[in-house]
């Protein structure tokens, strides 16, 4: 690949005349329907298909159309942003205290928030107590995304016929492929990881536990812990992580976290809506063990998010935990 200066590569990026991503990726093939082909073959194959689909006569017009397309795209973007700018021009000024957005709702959140939720972090109190329904949905968005990714990427042996050759070949091939990324007793990486991973995970736990007192909370903390796990995986490989983290653990954690979240919130909503007293003490504001349900919910969300992040990585890498 010839060296190009920054500007020209930027230009290429914009005009897509050639895409780095596309050029540099190794072409690997994993199923029978599309036979193994080199890049050149693939190119001319595409050309053939194009001939087939748009007849050869108007290839030139086809190219023209591609060019026109780009122009139109820019025009569209300009027009769209113009519309938005006109809108913004009519919006209330930023930062004014008497904007419509700053109304009784946020006053109450700030004034009563502490005593009603017991959380000094008003945002945490808001998303986990006042508007907890949204957050419940949000955590399930993550869940359903994880499920969809699993459907797409998980390779597993069929139970109907365990010696289904195609799928087993695919799995072994994927693992072979994965060996490329496996560490080969990379001393530096492993030592640094041994140093860093505990710190990262500890920090994540700290962020989770202080979600109701300081910036942070379940999601961010969980993401940090996930990052720690991924670093560990990269340093020590699957056979080490599988000892303490396999699919079963993953499923159990996800289920228990989400189910606990849903049921606890259901209880809270039920009591609140029917005017019953949910015997959940608010505790002393500012202490770790305070703010009623917020702390346990944070922990649950944290576990779920950590596992999901790790699972995403593992799926992307070799199609399975």
């Amino acid at each position, binding site marked *: 690949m010839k060296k190009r200066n920054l500007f020209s590569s930027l230009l290429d990026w914009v005009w897509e005349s050639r895409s780095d991503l596309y050029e540099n990726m190794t072409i690997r093939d994993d199923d029978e329907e599309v036979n193994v*082909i080199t890049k050149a073959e693939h190119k001319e194959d595409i050309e053939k298909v194009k001939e087939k689909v748009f007849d050869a006569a108007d290839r030139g017009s086809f190219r023209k159309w591609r060019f026109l397309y780009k122009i139109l795209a820019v025009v569209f973007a300009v027009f769209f942003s113009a519309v938005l*700018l*006109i809108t913004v021009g009519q919006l209330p000024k*930023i930062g004014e205290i008497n904007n419509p957005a*700053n109304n009784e709702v*946020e006053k109450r959140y700030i004034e009563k928030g502490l005593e009603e939720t017991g959380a000094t972090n008003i945002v945490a109190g808001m998303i986990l107590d006042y*508007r907890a329904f949204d957050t419940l949905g949000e955590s399930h968005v993550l869940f359903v995304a994880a499920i969809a990714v699993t459907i797409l990427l998980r390779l597993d042996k069929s139970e109907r016929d365990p010696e289904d050759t195609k799928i087993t070949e695919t799995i072994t091939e994927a693992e072979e492929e994965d060996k490329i990324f496996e560490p080969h007793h990379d001393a530096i990486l492993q030592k640094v990881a041994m140093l860093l991973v505990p710190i990262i995970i500890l920090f994540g736990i700290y962020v989770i536990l202080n979600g109701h007192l300081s910036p942070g909370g379940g999601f961010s903390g969980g993401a940090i812990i996930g990052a720690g796990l991924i670093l560990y995986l990269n340093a020590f490989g699957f056979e080490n992580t599988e000892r303490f983290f396999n699919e079963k653990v993953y499923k159990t954690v996800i289920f228990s976290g989400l189910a606990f979240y849903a049921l606890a919130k259901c209880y809270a909503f039920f009591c609140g809506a029917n005017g019953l007293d949910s015997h959940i003490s608010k505790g002393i504001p500012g202490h770790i063990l305070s703010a009623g349900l917020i702390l346990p919910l944070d922990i649950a969300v944290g576990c779920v998010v950590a596992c999901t992040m790790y699972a995403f990585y593992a799926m*992307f890498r070799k199609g399975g935990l």
Partner: protein
Amino acid sequence: MNTNLLNNYAEAVSMIIFAIGFTNLLLHKNLIKKIIGLNIMDTAVYLFLALKGYIKGHVAPIIIDGVVEPEAYINPIPSGLVLTGIVVSVSVTALMLSLTIRLYKRYHTLDLDEISLRLKKEGL
């Protein structure tokens, strides 16, 4: 037309970014660039929301030594919305990326048009 575009320049910027991301997601052919466009779009929306919450001279809504006057803190609602939105965009991005992986493994290209051509050829 009395516009306070100059006061809202930050919002204007966020909206322009939104338009760029939207166009990328809609009209780009390369799947990865589409996903980048998606993230640009979402980020622009979060910027917009954060600006909505901001009030001059107020600090982040974390109660320090028990001061609970609304005059002290900014509006917490948009921050909450941003948190929720981030999670959503993370999940969606993961899903899109995995779809892209599958398509690339099957068709060795990231160009959506090429993929459609391949499909037409397969006549599946």
